[in-house]
């Protein structure tokens, strides 16, 4: 019971992370294409400026909550995947630096460099998170404590890379919709056009990933748990709705539908690996589950209670702030992405 609640809380926090940081990663991924010239790029970046750091905290906080609820899984995953985690860490650091430094100097060379760095690190993070998600679905060769027994190269297997491509495409679409929703003028038009093309890419890759998932996970699992059909169907419905809404010219609703697609896909994945935190490979081969070496139920209950109360407050004030700052952005009128600075 405690284990399942913990699994749900972590799944929820990571999903919120992917939805929120997902759009600003996506904005980063498409920013070089949808925004030309300094003023447009500044406008695009200022659309995520007040939010991206808070969005990223969902990942950091999820790491802390994982530490408290599943210390062994935290220890096994972080030390077992040492190099991959370091690569993610570096991409996170590099992205943060690029965003913060960009507007400190009025120089085309300086800003151009950080724009490219920001975009590339955003794409890299989306790809890395997708590859990690793919590997979670596929499972890992693990020892009894859940320590990874394979190599870095093994993690770059075709299935995981395919999921990585899906993540880049889906989050780029998510980000393009965000730009179309928040901005007006040429960047919004380009974002809408780009999203129209990305949608087909997402559809094709999503179909390919779904087919490939049947190959890496035994089909028997799907019959056992009806949720495993409902959640991907919800995701698919979200994807189709995204198209319907953009056709009707309402990027805000399309963004919401895209959120349903992303969340549905993540939930499908979480339902597939449950009750494992680190599933073994080949699938069905055990792994580190929510029942393995967990703290006492009392400690888990305390951690869950403390986290849930805090997160409710976070959800409330984050929503309040997001509404206050969700004004439409017009290119050229928006001051620097660091209005107090630069």
């Amino acid at each position, binding site marked *: 019971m405690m284990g399942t609640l913990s699994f749900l809380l972590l799944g929820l926090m990571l999903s919120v992370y992917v939805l929120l940081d997902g759009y600003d990663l996506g904005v980063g991924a498409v920013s070089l294409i949808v925004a030309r010239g300094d003023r447009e790029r500044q406008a695009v970046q200022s659309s995520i400026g007040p*939010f991206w750091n808070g969005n990223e905290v969902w990942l950091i906080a999820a790491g802390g909550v994982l530490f408290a609820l599943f210390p062994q899984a935290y220890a096994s995953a972080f030390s077992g995947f*040492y190099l991959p985690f370091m690569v993610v860490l570096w991409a996170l650091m590099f992205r943060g630096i690029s965003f913060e430094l960009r507007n400190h100097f009025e120089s085309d060379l300086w800003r151009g460099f950080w724009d490219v760095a920001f975009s590339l690190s955003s794409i890299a993070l989306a790809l890395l998170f997708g590859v990690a998600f793919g590997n979670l679905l596929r499972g890992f060769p693990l020892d009894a404590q859940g320590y990874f027994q394979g190599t870095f190269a093994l993690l770059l297997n075709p299935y995981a890379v395919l999921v990585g491509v899906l993540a880049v495409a889906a989050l780029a679409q998510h980000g393009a919709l965000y730009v179309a929703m928040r901005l007006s003028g040429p960047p919004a038009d380009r974002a809408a056009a780009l999203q129209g093309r990305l949608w087909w890419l997402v559809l094709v890759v999503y179909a390919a990933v779904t087919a490939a998932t049947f190959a890496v996970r035994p089909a028997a699992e799907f019959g056992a748990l009806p949720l495993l059909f409902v959640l991907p169907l919800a995701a698919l419905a979200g994807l189709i709705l995204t198209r319907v809404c953009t056709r009707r010219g309402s990027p805000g609703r399309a963004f919401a539908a895209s959120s349903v697609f992303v969340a549905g896909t993540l939930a499908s994945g979480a339902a597939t690996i449950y009750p494992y935190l680190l599933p073994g490979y080949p699938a069905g081969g055990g792994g580190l589950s929510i029942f393995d070496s967990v703290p006492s139920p009392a400690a888990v209950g305390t951690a869950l209670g403390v986290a849930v109360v805090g997160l409710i407050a976070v959800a409330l004030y984050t929503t309040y702030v997001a509404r206050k700052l969700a004004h439409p952005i017009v290119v050229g009128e928006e001051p620097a992405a660091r209005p107090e*600075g630069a």
Partner: protein
Amino acid sequence: MEAVIADRIQFAFTVMFHYIFPIGTMGMAPFVAWFTVKAARTGDERYARAARFWGKIFTINFAAGVVTGIPMEFQFGTNWAPFSARTGAVIGQPLAMEGVYAFFLESVFLGVFLYGRRYVSPGLHAASAVLVWLGSWLSGFFIVVTDAWMQHPVGYAIGADGRIELTSLTAVLFSPFAVWQYAHVMTGALVAGSFLMAGVGAYYLLSRRHEDEGRIFLRAGVIAGFIFSAMTIFPTGDRNGAEVTRFQPVKLAAMEGLFTSEIGAPLAIIGMPDTQRQRLIDPIVVPDALSFLAYGTFKANVHGLTAYRRELWPPVELTYYAYHVMVGLGTIFVVLMALGALLLWRGVLLRSRWLLWLLMLTMPFPYVANEAGWMVSEIGRQPWIVYGLVKTAAAASVNVAAGETIFTTIGFAGMYFALGVLFLNLVLREIALGPEAA
């Protein structure tokens, strides 16, 4: 190289570099909040400029702090996996609470503070500055709680499989060790913030630029600096020391360079520890003073290092020097700030160029004192990672080789060098541009 040595070098290096930035954010946050609130209430444009100016410097610090802070959370899992697995039920709690209760508050309302001036009411804008301050101080609280538990574990039980189980979260959060350590750490950060204010103010007054704001900075810095530098010694330093005396007597002996137990132990002001011959070289001591400081009577018996097995000694030289650097600097800070406060009260501070020079030149030293304080705390804790419970040697990941950690340490060194250069460049540039540009 043993893996644990590489892990320790990496942690020490990355955390000491990281801590430069929280000193700045925790020390500056109350000043930024004060200027913002004052500007919102009075409409005084000088305070609004002061708030924007320090807000920019705060933000550069914050960004560098976030970027260098993420590796710290990672390293618990990557390089200290057995430690994390064994103690995660306890220390995972404050670390999770830091994310949920502090990081969100700080990040979300910094967004409002930086981007919202044109879109939210002045009241909400000022409130966001206060909430950023609260977030940064809560973050410090949860980190100090985690460290204080490693210094003096409470509220736990040892489970059947050797894992450490949490029995009382409130005991962990509000243990006297944690509370006094937190008070000491925060007053230390406030001293750094005060010296930044006073130093930049002095710089503007000496160079006869931005003198309106310079006076505001100097005044705020000197008043706060006098109060908080005195508080680093008493009560916070004194009480923190009492906790160390009570629970970590070996650390106390290493801090003071006391090798042999003595009734009426002397306090070494200076002197160089010689661990081979177990004595201080060329010491200048105050007789009986250590006994008095530790136990309140001049003839108390203070245990020296030789009263303990050698393998329980922390690295004596580093602990000793770090402690003496901290205390020596702390004393100088009190003297300087007391002089500043006196001259401010007499109304002659602005004309006392010699003191303005001293205040400006002292600006970096509170950083040194803060870092040295943490060195005393953490190096002095060795050979334990959790005092009396878990040895550091048994806490390092067995599945991460020294070579892997050295590889990433080299990477961190390069990245942090570049980051440090950029950071200094940006902050000095803001100071050169001045509050008028803000």
